[in-house]
């Protein structure tokens, strides 16, 4: 089992899972510095259902990469579950991603050579869970998203909605702190999209912490709290429920 870096601050006492302090991200394009995110302050508490909205170019994707520990901030601090992740090296970030983040992508991103069960097992494998344990858990999760009878199918044999359900099951594999969904219904028809949103609602009811990045108002309506990004800043935020 990979060791996670030590916790620096105990934010978790008040239920804060994710804390941004003046988070900045900029890219160097030749001589010009492109500021994508400017001093974002954000706190996400356990059990939150947060929707991140914003037009394209507002920094949504960059924010997603930062939350998902795929990228490091240029400035500011990012605490995830008490770990300061803004200064971690590549291996530690990988460990954090695998353990604390559950990704749900717009294009599902299942591994085509693996069947449903094996796809769900991937994050558990990288966390070093035993084969038996991970098999049992993968089957449980597949049943939870309603695919208990299709566990040996390849992604290519499933519909888009089913594939996204596999992806959600996979994101839950290591019981992460945050489930991070990027336009989870973007590639789906409306019926399958509703199914997915229902599953996300169900997860919210169960007390999971969800962050959904979308530009779709209807999806955002499902959330408990919305923030709207504009030009790299949090423009507005409000609570739906």
């Amino acid at each position, binding site marked *: 089992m990979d060791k996670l870096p030590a916790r620096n601050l105990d934010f978790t006492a008040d239920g804060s899972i994710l804390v941004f302090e003046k988070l900045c991200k900029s890219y160097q394009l030749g001589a010009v510095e492109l500021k994508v995110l400017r001093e974002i302050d954000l706190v996400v508490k356990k059990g939150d259902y947060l929707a991140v909205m914003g037009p394209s170019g507002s920094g949504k994707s960059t924010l997603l*990469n930062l939350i998902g520990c*795929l990228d490091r901030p240029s400035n500011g601090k990012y605490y995830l579950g008490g770990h300061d992740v803004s200064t971690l090296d590549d*291996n530690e970030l990988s460990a954090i991603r695998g353990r604390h983040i559950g990704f749900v992508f717009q294009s599902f991103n299942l591994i085509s050579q693996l069947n449903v069960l094996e796809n769900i097992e991937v994050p558990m*494998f*990288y966390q070093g869970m035993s084969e038996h344990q991970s098999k049992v858990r993968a089957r449980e999760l597949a049943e939870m998203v309603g695919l208990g009878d299709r566990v040996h199918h390849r992604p290519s044999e499933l519909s888009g909605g089913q594939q996204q359900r596999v992806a959600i099951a996979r994101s839950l594999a290591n019981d992460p702190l945050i489930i991070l969904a990027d336009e989870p219904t973007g590639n789906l028809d409306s019926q399958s999209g509703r199914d997915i949103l229902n599953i996300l609602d169900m997860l919210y009811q169960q007390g999971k912490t969800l962050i959904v990045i979308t530009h779709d108002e209807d999806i955002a309506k499902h959330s408990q709290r919305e923030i709207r990004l504009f030009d790299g800043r949090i423009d507005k935020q409000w609570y739906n429920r």
Partner: protein
Amino acid sequence: MFLYRTKRTLKLGIKSLWLHRLRSTLTALGIIFGVASVIAMLAIGEGASRDAMAQIARLGSLNIIVKTVQPPEDQHATGQQQSLQEYGLTYDDAERFRNSIPGVQVIVPVRRVAHQAWYRNRKIPVEVIGTVPWHLETSPIRLVMGRFLSNYDMDYKQDICVIDERVMNELFKFDDPRGQFIKIGSDYYSVVGIVSPQPIAVSSEQQKAKDAEASKKQAGANAGNVYIPLTTVKNRFGEMSVKISGQSGANVEKVELQEIIVKVANADLVLPTRDILQTVLERFHKKTDYELTVPLELLEQAKRTQRIFSIVLGSIAAISLLVGGIGIMNIMLATVSERTREIGIRRALGARKKDIIFQFLSETLLLTFAGGILGIFFGCTIPFFVTHFGNMPTVITAMSLLLSFGISGAVGIAFGMYPAYRAANMDPIESLRHE
């Protein structure tokens, strides 16, 4: 934990190789041929080398062979001269060797006369070898039946002989030769023993050609050897031989000894003794009517030649392995860029760089090891066919198997490392976006 990871990774590797069966097979072919050719070439090289060594060793590595040769000046003059030619090694030479050279264990003077041997109505050409009782100490032939010559035979110039198996088979088809008499010239000799035939010694290509020529000449000339006490030979056959050549008529030669074999106590003494012999001979022979052969020297020369031979063959084979390795690297690079998205997904799901490296490296290693095992299989069958149909000795050494397997593993690691590193160092964000 580690084992479990390895197992899962290997399983994954097999799965993705199986998914591209044709590609994997073609890629592995490079390694298969490389390994097979390394093994086959080394086996052929080793076989040839051992063969040559064995043949030289048969001459006796502690021996120095001094042979009588016709001096070159006389060969030109034969046309005019009809007179007596006297040349070659003498009994005095043998005596001098015995008295003046330290470290000499055995000295065997040999007189050879080509003659015909009769038994009842059968006649075959033989080579009469006048020698001493201790001849066997310097020669690879061994006693098969009866006894060899004795000191008594020497001292009393007995009319006895020892024949080799070839002569026995030719003359005594059904009879027991022991106690029988064979007639050579005008005298009868009692057969007292049988020895194994003299193996034809081959040391190097040059020697081989010489021998082929000689054996062609001898094929008609003699069917085997008859060993007779040296003293008896001296008495019965004398030292003269008459050659009748077409233009010049009779040509008389006087040669005392055809060969003196000197055996020393150990290998370190061979070369110094050779030098002493050379000096002694130079002093007493005005013409160079002798030739020194040192099997040990030939052996070492052959070893050097064979080493070069093996290195050349091995390098050619190693190059083919290298080419195979480059082929693997090429395919792995293609695979990596084909699976960019998968790499991105795995990275997002918690795979560290080294997990990705391990995944791709394991695929390469699986390919090369599978190729290596098949290559060893083919590499072992090729020498078999070479031996069977090409009539060439081959020897597969455990060393060559280990070497080629090790090389294929090394090739796998060397050429798998770069693609694996490339895969691991791709930016996960970029690769997730990759189509």
